[in-house]
């Protein structure tokens, strides 16, 4: 199934008419389940706030992870209901379908974050500081968490449905212990651990170097571009996988 230019050429925010219609369709089909997920999400926020933990980045991590996972629910539901064939009979190309999934996911993640933030701020006894929650650093950390989840999971879920999560996570979970067992057996465990630590430290050094070397606005732009590039690469992989999918 070769890519084709969409026949609806007018674009708003980079999306054509079909993309918006697909996002609208996902909302109509999933609004009840999304609302329920957001309700559970809000309840979690209230409970977290009541715990009076002074761990702002834990709050950011859990909130953004929740928001990212909620975005997979329309897709997972479509796969579970075997609705992908219906989607592919609509007058939209497969590229439209994948693009709408990515934009819809980011839109939903943003809405999820806003809901979480509102509840966390309004809940009695809240320790979430508004200036922290909307600080650019915090938002970039949040966007990175959402990106990491979406970049890895979306292509797999688009290709394999819910089992795509397992297709990705099970081999990863098996790979790491196997690598450690092999390294232990071959006496290279220390060197493997050192390499991993060195890799993580290098990444931290690069980010710190960028932060120190660039002005604040340039640093933020660099991070945003990096996240955009990761999402773009993930989107292209998802398109290639979905093109091969037979329904």
């Amino acid at each position, binding site marked *: 199934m070769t890519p084709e230019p969409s*026949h609806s050429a007018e674009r708003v925010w980079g999306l054509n008419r079909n993309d918006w219609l697909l996002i609208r*369709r996902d909302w*109509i089909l999933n609004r009840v389940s999304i609302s329920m997920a957001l309700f559970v999400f809000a309840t979690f926020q209230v409970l977290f706030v009541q715990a009076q933990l002074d761990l702002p980045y834990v709050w950011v991590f859990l909130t953004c992870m929740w928001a990212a996972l909620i975005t997979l629910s329309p897709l997972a539901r479509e796969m579970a209901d075997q*609705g992908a064939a219906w989607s592919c*009979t609509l007058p939209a190309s497969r590229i439209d379908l994948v693009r709408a999934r990515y934009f819809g996911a980011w839109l939903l993640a943003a809405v999820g974050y806003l809901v979480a933030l509102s509840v966390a701020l309004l809940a009695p006894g809240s320790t979430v500081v508004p200036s922290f929650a909307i600080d650019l650093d915090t938002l970039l950390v949040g966007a990175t968490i959402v990106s990491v989840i979406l970049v890895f999971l979306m292509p797999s879920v688009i290709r394999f449905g819910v089992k795509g999560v397992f297709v990705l996570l099970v081999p990863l979970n098996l790979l790491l212990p196997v690598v450690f067992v092999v390294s232990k057996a071959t006496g290279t465990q220390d060197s493997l651990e050192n390499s991993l630590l060195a890799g993580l430290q290098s990444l931290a050094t690069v980010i710190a170097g960028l932060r120190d070397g660039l002005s604040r606005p340039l640093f933020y732009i660099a991070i945003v571009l990096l996240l955009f590039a990761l999402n773009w690469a993930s989107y292209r992989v998802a398109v290639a996988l979905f093109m*091969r999918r037979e*329904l």
Partner: protein
Amino acid sequence: MGSARVEKEVAVPAQGRREALETGAESDGALVIDGVCKSYEGFVLKDVGLELPRGYIMGLIGPNGAGKTTLIKLILNLVRREAGSIRVLGLDNVTHEAEIKSRIGYVPDEPRYHPDITLENLKSATAPFYPSWSEERFQALASEFELSLGKKFKTLSHGTKTRFSLALALSHGAELIVLDEPTSGLDPVFRRRLLDVLAGILQDERFSILYSTHITSDLERTADFVTFLRDGQVVFSRPKDEVIGRWGVVRGGREILDAEARAFFEGVREREHGFEGLTSRVEAARQRFGDRVVIDRASLDDIMVLMGRGER
């Protein structure tokens, strides 16, 4: 068990061909499939070709596993073809996928929509994709098909799901309507109504219908063309009247069914006291077997059953 002779024939009725030539529409048929191949483990759709001119109904028949649903999925680009070409309304079905799908109305053999959603919401989610959507038409069809739009999809019977799918497919001015076993879950009364609706659509000669079915009596009532698929190959694709006029069923005692006689038939069914053989050489059969046999005109059902068996 030998295989019956496979003759690949693609034709349009003389009148239709003449009109098509006159209007220059021949190369711009509703559906032109040429040399299409697709293989799965244990199944091959091989070198499939057919042509449906605009304004006609084509019935796609064949035994289970013949490749009817696969062919329909190939037309909709739900599965990837490995060779050949498919042109829908003059456009390649892969490079112009979105445009073509806005002009196709499709009813799958088993409609699958989100089960917890009401028909009204399913319609709302679908309608804006189609520039030619007619809400008036949809409401009229929903009323005619006795659909309760407030009901959730999962609460519907198979027949009602098909009716809903039909209402969606027929509400956006589709020029090619593709139906995969649409009548299989319907009661006879609604089947007849559906056929009347389809016949009504064809009052406008821009519309065409491709219609796969096991219920050959429906085709005898409505189809202009019949395409017979067996084991992933087109056995014939011809005007219905030509198909029915051409084939005969020879019935006689088993004592005359020697090897030479078997070779005469495209398909044979043996019974305890006799046999039925399908032949396209009716006059030759009359001369050969004389009054030892009875020869009747073959129905589509006879053709499908006897050819589908592929026995000699």
